[in-house]
């Protein structure tokens, strides 16, 4: 039903659902990524190609198929006893912080 040739052929397909500049800007906003004006057309092109590529999934018949969220079927998430296992290491951890004062992480003013 499927073959790799089909997947390879997508390489040469013209994206049918090209993303607009506005859509790229909107995705970047959702992802909290600042893009330069020159980056936008690059992502317009490559994301459109990627969406076209993953669009191959549409052809698969998945009626009544359960989505697989975990590679080991049947494995359930463990619970552990609700005990304190970590001690206070904030000084060590804050050595990696860009900006701290008095043991607190500093960010720009949030509330006017």
């Amino acid at each position: 039903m499927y073959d790799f040739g089909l997947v390879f052929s997508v390489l040469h397909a013209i994206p049918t659902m090209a993303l607009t500049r506005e859509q790229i800007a909107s995705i970047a906003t959702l992802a909290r990524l600042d893009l330069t004006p020159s980056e936008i057309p690059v992502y317009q092109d490559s994301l459109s190609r990627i969406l076209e590529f993953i669009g191959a999934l549409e052809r698969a018949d998945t009626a009544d198929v359960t989505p697989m969220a975990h590679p080991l079927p049947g494995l359930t998430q463990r619970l552990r006893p609700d005990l304190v296992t970590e001690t206070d290491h904030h000084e060590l951890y804050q050595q990696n912080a860009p900006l701290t004062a008095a043991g607190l992480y500093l960010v720009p003013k949030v509330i006017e």
Partner: protein
Amino acid sequence: MSALHSHTLTQLADGLRRKRFSSVELVGEFLARIEKSQPRLNAFISVAAPAALEAARAADRALASGAAAALTGVPIVHKDIFCTAGVRTTCGSRMLENFVAPYDATVVAKLKGAGAITLGKTNMDEFAMGSSNENSYFGPVRNPWNPQLVPGGSSGGSAAAVAARLAPGATGTDTGGSIRQPAALCGITGMKPTYGRVSRYGMIAFASSLDQGGTLTATAADAALMLREMAGFDPRDSTSVDTPVPDYVAALEEPIAGLRIGVLGEFFDKGLDADNERCVREALKVLEGLGAKVRQVSLPNLPLSVPVYYVVAPAECSSNLARYDGVRFGHRCENPRDLNDLYRRSRGEGFGAEVKRRIMTGTYVLSAGYYDAYYLKAQRVRSLINADFIRAFDSVDVLIGPTTPTPAFPIGAKTDDPITMYLNDIYTIGANLAGLPAISVPCGFAHELPVGLQIVGPHFSEARVLGTAHAFQRATDWHTRIPVGYA
């Protein structure tokens, strides 16, 4: 014993115990090779020379007193995705250029506990996203077989280091082929265990339902030795599996006569280089000569594994990488106007082009209105692919085919088109989607470059996968080839 670097990890561990050389000698020789190779290969992001030599002196004392563990005094290197207390962990990114982890990853701690000595941290594609090691903030890694070519990725530094004999063993991670593909392109052995077999604690997350740590070594026997020490249950990884670790080394010698090998028809398609195919077909004949039974099998949904992967992996990546916000650790932009500007510019500056591409792809497929069409659909097709594998393993013990469609390609050849790059992993991604153990071993040369043979087994069949690879390596000498200039 001269030229210690040309020996396998297993031989070196044995030689140390027999006191044929010291750990200080061994570590010194490898550190000198790393330093000399660095301008040519760029396989390392950080080298921990003083700490390694100090650990070697301690190892020699332990060996002298008879208190040695399995890997006491053996030098190894870690992919720079594993957190190492006291040595920076960058994940190949500007975002973590100055990050020093406050703790060791479980893999690092276990190997240290077994006596291994860390020489340094290897270069990689940023956040393990890439198949050529061209996406590193610290520059590309070059293939020891030909410096104009890529080593593969994302564990490209680990693969190049082992191929050039800068270390006898390295850790790596494999989300869609990131151990097996560079191992194939560099002519070494790369082992990805079953999902959940090796702890992900302290291994920087890319796609949590796919990521799995493993080994890059010269031989399958070395992989068995390293994996035996790395694997096991870890309560700090919620997907770690609580089943005992077999002695993979002891299991290596089990005969493969009667082994049922399935050959995937889907893998021998027009994308496969003719010389790669020739090497793989000859390797199958070698295994048949050892008594294995080869039959053709079909996994009809497998060709959809790359599109499934490029929904699932970016989706999980966009979620995992949300933690890099410029507040608690990682890169922060200068003079943020407000909190949103802090997030957006820190992330825009800290992440490279491919990481941003995947975050945006993931954000899109998870966004309102598209979740069902892309993400849920991909998870359904993932179920079909998994069912194909389970069905195949009803009638065969292992599946064998090529690791990659082609040998190593030139630096810059595929950087313009992400999809062409993504298709490098067309044969390896299936094992990640289904969580299966898989190994790549050298099986010949095409265009004077190494070719990899991939062996995939059912869940938790590492011993059989390693044993099959070991039997192949007892019958062939491809794994002993060392690139010119590094012998």
